[in-house]
């Protein structure tokens, strides 16, 4: 059983991505980093379970129940869920939790219960959720402050903002123009923009595909399910 990082990295880098979507390199790094062992067998255990592994025999020495429990615990926890956050981005989730919590608490205090409402009233649950979210946000902050900065931390270096903004722009345009342009044109535009963001550059062919898909959807839905999609300006013109 010769397990090492390089052997695994070949399939992992190309197509060996687990459902949860961990960059496989990160997974292996984390396993090695978090355990500070550097022992090849250990690293393979964790990243192998994360779906990128090429070697299934890791962990054979353990009794099956334990191996299964470990495997289960580690699969159920694909690596991105345990990778610590680093950089300025590490405050995003705590801030989000605190913001939602604050809104919930504000709601709990301001929701007006009808006079005859039974207690606990409509503000009770939001209040509990808000309080728990604020506590959680505090816990996340503490975890962030205590967390050691390891090389494998999730610092969002892989994040490419430009294509994301293109897709978002496409969605905003689609929402804004849907009722004016109609489903056929607005839908085709959305498809085309998303394809562009994913790197499609055969503009004319993309446009033809986009129009055909949007048209197929419109026909399928109106005929098959009796759902009416907005026809927009095409409806007035034709």
């Amino acid at each position, binding site marked *: *059983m010769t397990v090492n990082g390089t052997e695994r990295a070949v399939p992992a880098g190309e197509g060996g991505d687990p459902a949860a979507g961990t960059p496989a390199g990160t997974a292996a790094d984390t396993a090695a980093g978090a355990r500070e062992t550097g022992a*090849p067998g250990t690293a393979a255990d964790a990243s192998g379970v994360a779906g990128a592994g090429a070697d299934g025999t890791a962990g054979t020495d353990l009794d099956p129940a334990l191996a299964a429990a470990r495997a289960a615990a580690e699969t159920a926890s694909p690596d991105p869920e345990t990778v610590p956050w680093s950089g300025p981005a590490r405050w995003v989730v705590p801030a989000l939790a605190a913001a939602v919590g604050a809104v919930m608490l504000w709601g709990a205090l301001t929701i007006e219960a009808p006079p005859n409402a039974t207690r606990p009233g*409509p503000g009770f*649950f939001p209040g509990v*959720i808000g309080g728990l979210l604020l506590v959680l946000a505090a816990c996340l902050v503490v975890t962030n402050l205590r967390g050691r900065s390891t090389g494998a931390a999730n610092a969002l270096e*892989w994040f490419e903002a430009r294509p994301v903004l293109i897709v978002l722009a496409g969605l905003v345009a689609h929402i804004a123009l849907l009722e004016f342009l109609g489903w056929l044109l607005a839908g085709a535009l959305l498809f085309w923009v998303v394809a562009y963001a994913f790197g499609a550059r055969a503009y004319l062919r993309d446009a033809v595909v986009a129009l055909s898909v949007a048209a197929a959807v419109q026909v399928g839905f109106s005929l098959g399910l009796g759902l009416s999609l907005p026809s927009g300006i095409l409806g007035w013109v034709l």
Partner: protein
Amino acid sequence: METLVNLGDGLLAALSPGNLMWAFLGVVLGTAVGVLPGLGSAMAVALLLPVTFRLDPTSAFILFAGVYYGGMFGGATTSILLNTPGQASSIATTYEGHKMALAGRAAQALGTAVIGSFFASLIGTLVVAFFSPVMVSFALNFGPGEYFALTVFSFVAVAAVVSGSVLRGLTSLLIGLAIGVVGIDGQSGAPRFDFGSAVMLDGIDVVIVTVGLLALGEVLYVVARGKSAPDFAAIRTGRPWLNRRDWKRSVGPWVRGTALGSAFGPIPGSGAEIPTFVSLGLERKLAEQRAKRKGDPQENEFGKGAIEGVAGPEAANNSSAAGTLVPLLGLGLPTSATAAIMLAAFQQYGLQPGPVLFERNADLVWTLLASLLIGSVLLLVINLPFAPLWAKLLKLPKPYLYGGITLFSVLAVYAINTSVVHLVMLLAVALLGLVMRAFGVPVAPALIGVVLGPIAETEFRRALAASSGDPSILVGSGISITLYVLVALAALIPVVAGLRRRAADRSAKASVSERDGVSEKDGVS
């Protein structure tokens, strides 16, 4: 016996040409979605949810059943051919399955996966048929207090046990619960968090949340990863015929995998992946013992592409998929993301799963169970000859694939009420999904929170109203006390697992030197 008669009646009802067509469509769609990496059966069901508004409930559930089973199998195809599991429950299949493919036995691996899935779905459905009524007679003793305890149990199980980090799991759950309280309060009629918008008074539709978090959130996440996102490589396959030796070696794992999956499926929060790994570990251990007993190391093919390592986990994930329907139908308790969406689907039709459903809509329940049987037969018929064809789906250009998913996401949400405001909500939820994915916050607890949150709140307030504010009603019965004890135990599992993992690491470290020694010997021979 009565169960069998009911199931037979259901089968007669389900076997109309129209329903067969929906089952067929479901299996095809489910398999197609399951084959694509990153898209699970939960996403397929979420996208189909609004489409089924126009169908009658029976046809809709037949469609869902097909999608559910098809998705489970579709994931196996990519695990075997590409070493890329389509969803978490197929991860265990990759180890031996992809080795078999590399050894030129991809066709056999696919064959044992299809037949194993068929066998497991069949047995799993029978288990559901026999155990749901038992669950129902148990659930008849439940009052609001017990139901509230049940939802708390489900929350803790999903947030703490399934998630990698308890803190992140709970964050996801609470955000889901927060989304769930938006809209008019069902108990008092007071508007909550409507921010002056009339559309918000209806709350944030479950379809928006599921499509936003699962489908559109995934599109944004994949595009954000750019070049680091997976690419789909070329594939070789053949026809999946098994020889006699393959059959002999597959039957045992199928049976054991089915038993494991049926046992784990109904447990809230256990998910489909735990039994697959238990099955893989068990088959590996059995193969080792067999090799030792016969003194022939050839008997143990683990590590080189053992067919047992595909047959077991694939049977386990299909039977656990069926198993999750036991608490869903019997108690109205979803134990997976897909089940949560199916619960939402029941609610769209004004049906509340649980004891009442069995009393009032018994024919629907039995038709649904029978449609699961039909779904598993179709799974076999469609996928045994065409498995290699499915793999071709991966050759679809990525821009068009994701363009299509985006289009369908928008359509699914627009179809709810032809409201553009819903699309704005979808955009917001999709951004939330992107943030959660980017920071490794699990999405499933949020879905469970959105679906179960309102139920939890209603039951809680109903219980307190019944006792005129005396909170002791919440722990007033043996059932709720037992459930709270289980909650405490479930919360302890991650802690204990952490300790055991640390202990296991130490023993693994100790044995690494020994194992490396063995592997060198293997290399020489």
